[in-house]
């Protein structure tokens, strides 16, 4: 058990814009537990949970420990036999089952049995640890980022994170997506679980069964020129698996073409509009101006008017 500093935990969590639900899910405890930890001055918690808590808060363990008594303490409240390693048990303490006259035979037999037990226990521990130490299996979840190759500065640019869950169960995911410099978040669906204002990282804690879509839209200043580079990671919540990078598109360059006009021919073709509708058929519709897109498709093309900061549709 270790003693943590409840007020430090709360301060760090609030500074990083994390919810108690996010932290609770990452540590695999209830939100009530997190609340209790934060409200008590120096609660003693399991070291394993303290490590997970530090990981969820993205700090070192020492940063959340009680400064006065940061040395780990032994838990004397719940001593259990199963908690002791089998290998440490002393066979000499096993009460001997002896019969008069057979003492000399029973003792070596007991010693042998004890040795066999120790070897068996050591073997079991070795196999257990070998299994634990093995490289974690790759996650059954894959996340691909879809971002248009170009966008108009000052106009919304949607980014789609398409999740493909190959497992039969719903998977809780922690997703972190770093916003590139020069742009700001307009909206996100599902709503963010947290946002790190220091490095502009968006965070979601979401459960996905089958295929899912996470959408967010960003905007730059109208005079922005250059490219936006996106990066992010995903990790299964409640899992020892390491975080993996989000795949797919990473870069979008400012220009004079609507983001959905992927071939840059100043019109929205049948294929281009179908691609957008296929992508946002579920929850992502709010992130995209579908009316404008359909108007452009219905017309004969469009031009970007920088002085008016608007798209003119050619009828």
């Amino acid at each position, binding site marked *: 058990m270790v003693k943590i500093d409840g007020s430090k935990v709360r301060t760090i969590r609030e500074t990083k814009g994390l919810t108690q639900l996010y932290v609770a899910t990452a540590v695999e405890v209830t939100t009530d537990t997190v609340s209790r930890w934060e409200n008590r001055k120096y609660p003693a918690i399991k070291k394993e949970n303290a490590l997970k808590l530090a990981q969820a808060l993205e700090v070192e363990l020492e940063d959340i420990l009680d400064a006065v008594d940061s040395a780990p303490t032994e838990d004397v409240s719940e001593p259990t036999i199963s908690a002791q390693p089998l290998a440490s048990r002393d066979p000499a303490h096993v009460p001997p089952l002896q019969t008069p006259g057979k003492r000399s035979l029973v003792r070596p037999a007991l010693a042998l049995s004890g040795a066999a037990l120790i070897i068996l226990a050591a073997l079991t521990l070795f196999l257990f640890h070998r299994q634990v130490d093995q490289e974690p299996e790759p996650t059954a979840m894959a996340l691909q980022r879809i971002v248009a190759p170009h966008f108009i500065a000052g106009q919304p640019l949607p980014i789609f994170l398409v999740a493909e869950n190959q497992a039969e169960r719903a998977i809780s995911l922690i997703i972190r997506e770093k916003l590139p410099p020069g742009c700001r978040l307009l909206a996100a669906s599902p709503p963010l679980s947290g946002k790190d204002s220091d490095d502009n990282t968006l965070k979601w804690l979401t459960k996905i069964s089958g295929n899912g879509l996470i959408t967010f839209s960003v905007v730059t200043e109208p005079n922005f020129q250059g490219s936006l580079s996106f990066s992010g990671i995903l990790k299964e919540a409640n899992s020892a698996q390491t975080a993996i990078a989000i795949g797919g598109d990473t870069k979008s360059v400012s220009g004079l073409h609507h983001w959905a006009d992927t071939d840059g021919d100043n019109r929205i073709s*049948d*294929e281009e*509009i*179908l*691609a957008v*509708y*296929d992508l946002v*058929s579920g929850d992502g519709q709010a992130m995209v101006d579908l009316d404008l897109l*359909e108007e452009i*498709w*219905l017309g004969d093309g469009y031009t970007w008017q920088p002085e008016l900061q608007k798209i003119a549709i050619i009828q």
Partner: protein
Amino acid sequence: MVKKPMPPFFIIVIFAACACCLSLLEPAACQAAPVSATVYLQNGSKAVLEINLANPVPASLIAQIALPPTARIATTSPGGAKIERGSNSVKWLLKNPSAGTIYLSVTSADGFDQKSLSGVVLFRRQPDGSLVKVNAKKR
């Protein structure tokens, strides 16, 4: 009378035969298109495109009726369609359609021949997103 059990060899042969039949049948089932269409002329001036959708239904599709160059487009049903003067055709964007039959029509101010009528349905096949073009059969 004791019935003689079937030799293991025959059991293996039967299983192999069943597996072969299933492997032949399965691709046919998978390739069944979820979209089929028929185009026809009604009352000499109304072109109708009948689209049959089966599960899994595409998330969206585009349907198009092309009239002969001489037939002037008067009305469309449903409205809100894209009229392309160059090809004298009408396009509809159908969003989140359900399985079943959809009827789309164009009425011309002029009578025309069914031979010069055509219909097309476009959608993206999942999961690869490739564009599929279904030419409507003529009735």
